[in-house]
């Protein structure tokens, strides 16, 4: 799936730099990520079972991936038995066409949506609009983003990059009414706007946090109740999810629910956990008349046996974004693709191939905070390093970089040459050294010294001093 060329036309380093200079973004990111980090930490502190449940959750995901075909078959059988329709989409394009076609056939004019990254991945909204079906995002954050004509910058908090002041300005501009920059007042306005849409819409579109194979249940974890409205008011409900979201049983679901909201927002549970089983049944008075489940592959299935397999366990909680020092500085948009942050880099590689993350694979200090926060303990840094290796081996990395590293490697294998590095550096650094520090260096080295001093190579290295130390023993 191609991303907006306008964003990717700017190199990543410049996109990141622009984000660093966006004061609103910096303010919004610091407040929100700090709050998420504290809430998550607090939630697990009060939940000593958490650690063992995280291991259990990961084990369930691994076991499910082992037999994914079987669980998907079981899910399909159960959804169909309940009167629903199941569609397989090999690519994002295919999934988009399927959803649009379902809406068109049903004569839908307006689709209300609850938050779904899968539909972002397939750029569904533009396709719906082009087909004459007006998409309306009903999650508050998504609603804000849609009004602004932007894309989500966080997996669970799509408008995390906006301050409340910016949202108030946006509402005034787009809705034509002055609203104070107060979250409660802003929410009240959005709720009033959305209430009409829920009643008008003839199509409801959701993602799915989980799909339970042995019952055919689609599970939505939300906080605003919009998921419930989207799945019960319109006459047609379409759920879109990556195939890896299937889990075996309701018992397994309990394990995930126990850790998902804690990791995401620090809540014990989200305000709403919506369980959907097929369309309205005979004798039932509520629910859609028609239910469709679209199972999206888009590069996922091949990773069951691929280097990014671990990433298929992701619950999309966003915890790794909140703790990532890079994400906290640059926000989600700078990454340039649907999924930002550490896990986003892996998902981008999964969906778009390793060449797409040539730069992003390096957008991490490998500090490990992501793996530490991940509810299912995905070793994100390990896979980032593997992507870097792939970028090197497939000759995607710039040749100059490859030469530098291979020369460095050759030097490290030859101690006699390596020992010369110090005296040579001492000569070369002479014009730049100010005592034991260097304030300015030319060429590539200026990338360090533009903002930081560099220690000068010592007058005598440890190796050079060892001779006398050895004597002194």
């Amino acid at each position: 799936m191609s991303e907006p060329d306008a964003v990717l036309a700017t190199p990543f380093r410049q996109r990141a730099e622009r984000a660093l200079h966006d004061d609103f973004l910096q303010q919004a990111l610091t407040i929100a990520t700090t709050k998420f980090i504290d809430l998550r930490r607090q939630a697990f502190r009060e939940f000593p079972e958490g650690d063992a449940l995280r291991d259990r959750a990961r084990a369930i995901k691994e076991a499910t991936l082992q037999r994914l075909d079987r669980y998907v078959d079981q899910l399909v059988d159960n959804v169909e038995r309940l009167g629903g329709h199941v569609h397989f989409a090999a690519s994002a394009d295919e999934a988009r066409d399927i959803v649009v076609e379902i809406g068109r056939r049903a004569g839908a004019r307006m689709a209300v949506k609850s938050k779904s990254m899968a539909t972002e991945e397939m750029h569904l909204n533009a396709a719906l609009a082009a087909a004459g079906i007006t998409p309306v995002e009903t999650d508050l954050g998504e609603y804000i983003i849609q009004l602004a004509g932007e894309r989500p910058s966080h997996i669970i908090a799509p408008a995390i990059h906006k301050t409340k002041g910016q949202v108030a300005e946006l509402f005034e501009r787009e809705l034509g009414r002055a609203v104070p920059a107060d979250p409660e007042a802003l929410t009240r306005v959005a709720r009033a706007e959305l209430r009409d849409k829920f009643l008008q819409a003839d199509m409801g579109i959701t993602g799915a946090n989980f799909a339970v194979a042995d019952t055919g249940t689609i599970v939505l974890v939300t906080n605003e109740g919009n998921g419930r409205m989207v799945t019960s008011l319109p006459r047609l409900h379409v759920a879109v999810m990556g195939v890896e979201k299937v889990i075996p049983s309701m018992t397994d679901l309990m394990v995930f629910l126990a850790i998902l909201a804690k990791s995401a927002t620090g809540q014990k549970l989200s305000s709403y956990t919506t369980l959907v089983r097929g369309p309205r049944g005979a004798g039932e008075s509520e629910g859609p008349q028609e239910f469709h489940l679209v199972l999206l592959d888009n590069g996922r299935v091949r990773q069951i046996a691929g280097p990014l397999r671990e990433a298929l366990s992701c619950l999309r909680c966003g915890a790794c974004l909140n703790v990532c020092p890079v994400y906290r500085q640059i926000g989600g948009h700078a990454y340039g693709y649907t999924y930002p942050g550490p896990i986003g880099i892996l998902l981008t590689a999964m969906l778009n191939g390793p060449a797409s993350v040539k730069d992003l694979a390096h957008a991490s200090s490998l500090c490990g905070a992501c793996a530490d926060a991940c509810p299912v303990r995905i070793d994100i840094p390990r896979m980032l390093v593997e992507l870097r290796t792939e970028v090197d081996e497939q000759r995607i990395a710039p040749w100059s970089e490859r030469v530098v590293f291979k020369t460095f490697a050759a030097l490290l294998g030859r101690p006699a040459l390596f020992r010369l590095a110090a005296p040579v550096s001492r000569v070369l650094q002479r014009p730049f050294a100010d005592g034991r520090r260097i304030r300015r260096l030319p060429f590539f080295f200026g990338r360090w010294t533009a903002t930081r001093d560099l220690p000068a190579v010592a007058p005598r290295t440890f190796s050079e001093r060892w001779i006398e130390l050895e004597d002194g023993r």
Partner: protein
Amino acid sequence: MTAAGAGSRSPRVSLLITCLGDMFYPEVGVGIVRLLRRLGVSVDFPKGQTCCGLPLFNSGYRAEAAAVATRTVRLFRDAESVVVPSGSCAWMVKHEYPGLMPDAALRDEATALAGRTHELSQFLVHVLGRTEFESAVKGRITYHDSCHLLRGLHEAETPRAILRALKGVEFVELAGADECCGFGGSFSVRLPEVSTSILDRKLASVEATGARCVVACDAGCLMQMSGGLSRRGSSVRALHLAELLGDAAT
């Protein structure tokens, strides 16, 4: 006292100085040698050391890192214990070396080496059983957790135990001590603006403590933090743990 310290024979340590330690911070290495000797440990320094290979490994040059790792394993073959003054390099040896070896025999050797290799603060506390040292500095200090020592080797306690026990030193916790300083090896020059922005956040926290120095157990973090502190003309210093212990500073 634990096993190595209680034996009849004095423990022997081979120092893995690390590339940054060798070139930029030789006084830290000298201090460690003197410190260990004062504690009755005999120290040697196997010749031919270059670098642990972590910069190559982290940048994705796996085969090249494996070659460096293999020669380092051979170099420390006879070492009783290996002490490393950087959490990241210690992590590399302990965590990644075995998986990088070309054959089973070397893998066994690397696994054994991993077990005998210790980050400095862990060696002092866990192997020698020592937390009390003479203090080379006075006043308020704070501590930055290096990512690899904290999340790689799961160690938050040994450096703090040592720092808390220093006489004449007031140890204060750093807000966000567990957050990265922004170094990240080549990350610091691939995305220098982001790296510096992360550093600025760290240094603001350091300055807010009112400490006169921030201590770390990793040459990478020290290079990053001291580079930033020096550039902003701060009087706060970034010091290696060893520089605080006894006459370590020369």
